[in-house]
């Protein structure tokens, strides 16, 4: 009897996921496809202070930009918002805003996010909705649809793209070391159109990201390796959980295509009751003379 009830409950959850995905699909089919051709969606202050290595992280809503499955393990709703200036050495630095929310509802976690990049006359934005579910105590799965658009006055472009992610809890691999693995496939499919007299600029290459995270004794190490047709992206981050709610972080990113571009990151976070405040400092090793990128973030657990 118990087994039958359990089976019905699982069928009920799967049915709701299907309904949700269908709703998302229909919503974007109606509102029109959009695509940003040159995207700088790289998460918030927490993500960047960890070098952008967040695909195997589960404790933040900012993971929705990196792995749609990762927020499945959140126990409580979480929202973050980040403001940043890119290349602060410029007289007119581009400005970024990022927001993310992950909200557990019964056995699934709903997630949404937005990202903007502005520098007159360029305006670029991305929206994301997705869902994550725990399929097994060790396995989580998620999917998201990302909406991108940019406009420069005379020209514009729109697109939408899908991504799928998996998270696998390896567990305790040593008495004090816990391990988690991730696998993400992004830019799975999409639809593109040009605004005004512009040109549709084609689909970004489908990318695959493999990630890992090790946690133990107040320390956390994350590593992501992303690959698409033309490039390899290696991201790594380290976090030290100090006392009094303080966290110190550092990271590095290596972007390899025709050239090798390196960025390094440092940052810190502070937790106060249900709130947390984060700061990330990012500097390109190759064009350091353009100044650093600063991001300030705030988040809350509900």
């Amino acid at each position, binding site marked *: 009897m118990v087994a039958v009830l359990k089976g019905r409950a699982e069928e009920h959850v799967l049915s709701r996921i299907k309904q949700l995905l269908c709703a998302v699909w229909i919503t974007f089919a109606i509102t029109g496809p959009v695509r940003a051709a040159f995207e700088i969606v790289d998460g918030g202050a927490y993500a960047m202070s960890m070098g952008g290595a967040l695909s195997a992280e589960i404790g933040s809503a900012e993971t929705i930009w990196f792995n749609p499955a990762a927020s499945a393990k959140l126990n409580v709703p979480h929202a973050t918002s980040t403001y940043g200036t890119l290349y602060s050495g*410029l007289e007119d630095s581009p400005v970024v805003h990022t927001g993310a929310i992950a909200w557990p509802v019964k056995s699934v976690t709903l997630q949404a996010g937005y990202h903007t*990049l502005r520098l007159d006359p*360029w305006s670029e934005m991305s929206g994301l909705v997705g869902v994550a579910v725990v399929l097994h105590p060790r396995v989580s799965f998620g999917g998201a649809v990302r909406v991108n658009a*940019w406009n*420069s*006055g*005379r020209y514009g472009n729109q697109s939408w793209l899908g991504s799928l992610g998996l998270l696998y809890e390896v567990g305790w691999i040593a008495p004090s070391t816990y391990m988690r693995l991730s696998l993400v496939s992004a830019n799975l499919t999409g639809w593109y159109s040009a605004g005004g007299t512009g040109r549709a*600029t084609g689909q970004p290459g489908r990318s695959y990201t493999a990630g890992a995270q090790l946690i133990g004794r107040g320390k956390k190490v994350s590593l992501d390796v992303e690959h698409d047709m033309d490039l390899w992206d290696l991201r790594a981050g380290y976090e030290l959980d100090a006392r009094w709610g303080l966290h110190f972080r550092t990271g590095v990113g290596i972007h390899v295509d025709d*050239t090798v571009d390196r960025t390094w990151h440092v940052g810190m976070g502070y937790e106060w009751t249900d709130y947390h405040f984060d700061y990330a400092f990012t500097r390109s090793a*190759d064009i350091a003379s353009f100044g650093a990128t600063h991001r300030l973030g705030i988040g809350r657990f509900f």
Partner: protein
Amino acid sequence: MVVAFSDVAFAEMEREVWEWAEGPKLDIIQTSVEWVAGEGVMLANLSTQKNIAAGMVAKDDLGLRVPLTDGDVSLGVSEWVSNTPNVFGRNFIVDLGVNRAITRVRVLPGQTAINQPEYFVRGYRLEAARANDSDLWRILAEAQTNISLTIDTLTDSTWSVRDLDQNDVSRQGRFVRFTITRQDRSNWVALGEIEVFAVGYEMEGLLTGQLSTSGPVNVGRVQWKVSVPGGTAFRLASASGGDEIPWQAIRTMENGELFAGQEPVKVVAWRGQMFTSEPFATPTWQRFEIEYDRRLVASSMAGSVLPVTVNRGEETQVTYRLELGVSTDDYGVDLLRLNGLAMSVQGVSINGRTLNAGQDYTTSQDIVAQETRLVLDANNRVEDDAVIEVFGNVRLLADVNVIRPMVGDTGQSVVDGYTNWQNGHDPLFISQISAQGEPGDLIGQLQLSQRAFSPYSDEQISFDFVVSRLSNATDVLLSVYNLNGSRVRRYVQYGAARAYRMAWDGRDEDTHIVEPGIYLFEIEVRGGGVEGTRRGTCVVAY
């Protein structure tokens, strides 16, 4: 290498030709060259009695200059005295300037040694090398039992460079080292001179001459035929007038280049220089020719400019006034160049009559060459005395900006196949503008033509800026990066303090159009003792 010579002749142009293979000319002044029948002019062979070390730099083993190549052995300043008996291992290096085929070295005693003969060198070593490097020295002569005050490798039989028949042969090298390897007890050493003798060609030779005409002419192309083997060089310069030419200040010409001196002119002076850095290689100058036209473009021209003083770096309106004297014998003028003034032309008038831009004339400016060019249409060509006034804006940075007018005629160009510009370089006709005030920023007044552009619409973004405070010409770079920090394009211009325009066409180094988005640009000035940058953003969209 043989430099090509054009044999094309044009109807109106006359030419003066010097065929050097036929033998020397009476009115030519020559130094260190000789004629070879059927060949041409070559560098002269070295005299066996010529001391090629005379006047060259000699240094001791401490790197200090010593007076051993000044042709004098007198007491004190013209000799080297050890002032200590411990001179074992001391050496002196003479730099001959280029590689020479050395046949003999002579070391003369200083006056101190002549007065007190015990100041002689008992043992010595003479070496030669192509480079001043410890591993490359080769022995010329060596003796440990010298008893002569004068060391002469010709007479003391210590010359070690011999052929299979034991005849002395030369040793090639640029440097000669004289080392003291032995001394008698308590003897000091006093050296007066190190002389070096060699075979082969002179290092440098020159010919000077002039073209004289019965009346004023407009000089055209200057051409020559010369063979230049490896290790040799040939240079030619020409100038107006025949007396006291400051050759050091006159630029070397390219073969076939137009005469750049003052015109019209009755006397054109020229100077050909031959060089070699190899002992047995010489240029061979076979032929020389100067084209000239007795028919002038204009009989006279006198230019002036207002204002004569402007604020440095500020855009200022100037008026250039050119008074032309044109007779019926002249070609007339429909082409004008104002060298030294890159003017954004606002208007042109002839004898007070304002011309219509695009219809009556067209203009262009060359920022790199700092020049304004004006082309008059057929209905407005100047065929009589006239005053041409050109109005426009300039931005000047140098202290003194000398403006040199050049006039030409399309008809002459058609007849002769090239425009024989007539230069108004007479000092009386040169006008100049002084720029006053403090120099601005190293890279200042940066202006972008637009912020966003589409490469698919053949648009580009141009960067106008002014480089100040630059005393020497250097590299000016424009680099474009994407937001990931990857450099997508780089442009380089070489120049001095002036206004610059550099443009990006929205393509990467492989000429592929870049992705739309925000791009970073950086303008850099490097070298010349200064460094500066300006950075900003632009947008590619399509």
